[in-house]
């Protein structure tokens, strides 16, 4: 029962919200425009580092730091988009995965340690006075102490983080909904289906793909900020496993739907937490025969769930099965 409760508490977690937001950005690329972005972790890293460095190292105001993070994400999208968006889709996949690894190695290197903290990352320590989330904590409208909601207990900070992040997710999801129902969104979906057809109808396909890459990338950068706000910035968090977890989230919920990424993120984290709980239970009971690294087992369980899902519900939880019936377009 405890396992169930702790698992369900993940629904409110800012990390879940960050994954949902990141998956919304990825959905704009992959689900709606058909762009194979395998380097979404790079956009998250740029957002997280751009924001944290601006506040903690350069002492810039939060608003400016946000703008820095967004501007860097736009720049990154242009940098990888301009040379590759005129090529076939698979080249974008290669370039994005390489570019996100370049970002990770760059922030990890000791050369830039003065800014990025190298392999240590960036601390978020109020006592040492270098917290990049101080402004966020100061803005907390809740009184210190614990808040009980049903069977769950939150600290005031947790509650504030949950509300703030989920409001951002809701606003961005609404924005994407508004965009995708517009003629602009219809052109994006058309490009996903056949870009030559859209070119023959007078649409500037490269312009639309660049716009999509930028908007989805900026959403990814905001998700990166959300991801590190309650914790610290560590370069290892932005490896390609993050990208592939986000693809898992997207496929779980249903690509090319508005709420699919949100539902996917919730299910992903609840399942992950539940399997974690079950494995710990197993360890304590000694049923696992003392696996050295039992905590890694949870990703195996997530993998199995994903395989089952792909076999029995390939369109994801919210997708339209009919759309998958025509793969010979």
């Amino acid at each position: 029962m405890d396992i169930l409760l702790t698992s369900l508490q993940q629904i409110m977690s800012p990390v879940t919200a960050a994954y949902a937001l990141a998956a919304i950005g990825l959905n704009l690329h992959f689900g709606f425009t058909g762009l194979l972005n395998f380097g979404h972790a790079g956009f998250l890293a740029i957002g997280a580092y751009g924001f944290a460095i601006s506040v903690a190292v350069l002492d810039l105001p939060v608003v400016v730091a946000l703008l820095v993070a967004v501007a860097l994400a736009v720049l990154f999208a242009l940098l990888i988009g301009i040379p590759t968006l005129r090529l076939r889709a698979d080249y974008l996949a290669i370039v994005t995965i390489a570019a996100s690894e370049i970002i990770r190695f760059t922030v990890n290197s000791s050369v830039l340690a003065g800014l990025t903290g190298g392999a240590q990352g960036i601390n978020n320590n109020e006592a040492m006075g270098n917290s990049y989330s101080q402004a966020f904590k100061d803005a907390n409208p809740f009184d210190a102490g614990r808040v009980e909601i049903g069977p769950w207990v939150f600290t005031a900070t947790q509650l504030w983080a949950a509300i703030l992040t989920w409001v951002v997710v809701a606003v961005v999801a609404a924005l994407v909904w508004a965009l995708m129902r517009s003629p602009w969104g219809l052109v994006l979906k058309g490009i996903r289906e056949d870009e030559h057809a859209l070119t023959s109808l007078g649409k500037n396909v490269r312009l639309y793909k660049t716009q999509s890459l930028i908007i989805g990338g900026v959403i990814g950068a905001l998700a990166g900020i959300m991801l590190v706000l309650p914790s610290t910035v560590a370069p290892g968090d932005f490896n390609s496993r993050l990208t592939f977890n986000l693809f898992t989230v997207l496929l779980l919920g249903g690509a090319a739907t508005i709420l699919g990424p949100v539902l996917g993120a919730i299910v992903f984290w609840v399942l992950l937490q539940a399997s974690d709980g079950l494995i710990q239970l197993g360890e304590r009971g000694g049923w696992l025969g003392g696996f050295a690294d039992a905590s890694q087992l949870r990703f195996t369980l997530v993998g199995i769930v994903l395989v089952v899902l792909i076999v029995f519900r390939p369109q994801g939880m919210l997708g339209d099965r009919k759309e998958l019936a025509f793969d010979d377009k």
Partner: protein
Amino acid sequence: MTSDPVLVAERVVRGFGGVRAVDVEHLTVERGTITALIGPNGAGKTTLFNVLTGFDRADGGRWSFDGTDVTGLPAHRIARLGMVRTFQLTRVLGRLTVLENMLVGARHQPGETLRRALVPALWKGKRAADVDRARELLDRFALGAKAGDHAASLSGGQRKLLEMARALMNEPTLVMLDEPMAGVNPALARSLLDHITALRDEGRTVLFVEHDLHLVKSVSDRVVVMAQGAVVTEGAPDTVLRDPAVVDAYLGAHHDTDLREIIARETARETAGETAEETG
């Protein structure tokens, strides 16, 4: 009749490696006519289409559309000027509905720019007008009942119709159809021909690629014959199609030989080949 060309091309060349796929000295398409582009497989018809519409680059030459030099312009800008093409292998947008396929073909939709997309008031009116026009066209192309279906559920012939209807949503001056009748049953081919005639009658210009000489003869005002990348001859269908050089280029020198003789000869050659392989 005074000449009023909508498309003029001079010395258009496109090579692939050592092969000159297209080497057209001169080509004009008169306004308000149906021009058929015929020629054997590999004559360079589709490559010429691709070059003229900006989908492929040329190695040399100049061409202008409606008085504007469009040499080397990107494909989407050429399309915006009013020169809209279809494809040999149909390109319908499978996971969009038939109606959405049509709507995406409309031009001058202000909501297609990011700035205006978030303000429905700026594009709702145009969208409603487009829906009306789309439904009208779908009815005309016998696709009215399919408006809400995914385009991927259409048959091959219906996809041809949809692609033509979608091109019309774009209100083109010149419609370029790449083998509109390929792989279509005779009844549908007939109705496609009627649609092509109707396009001319409403004042558009049509340039289309076709293989079947009888179909070409019945609708086209002019015929342009290509072989090995070059324009061999052009003129009124009756004159051109009786030209023995055209018949030879197009059908090969043996077009009037009995088919059974050719088959017998081919079979004999194959058997000989197989025997040679076995012994070798």
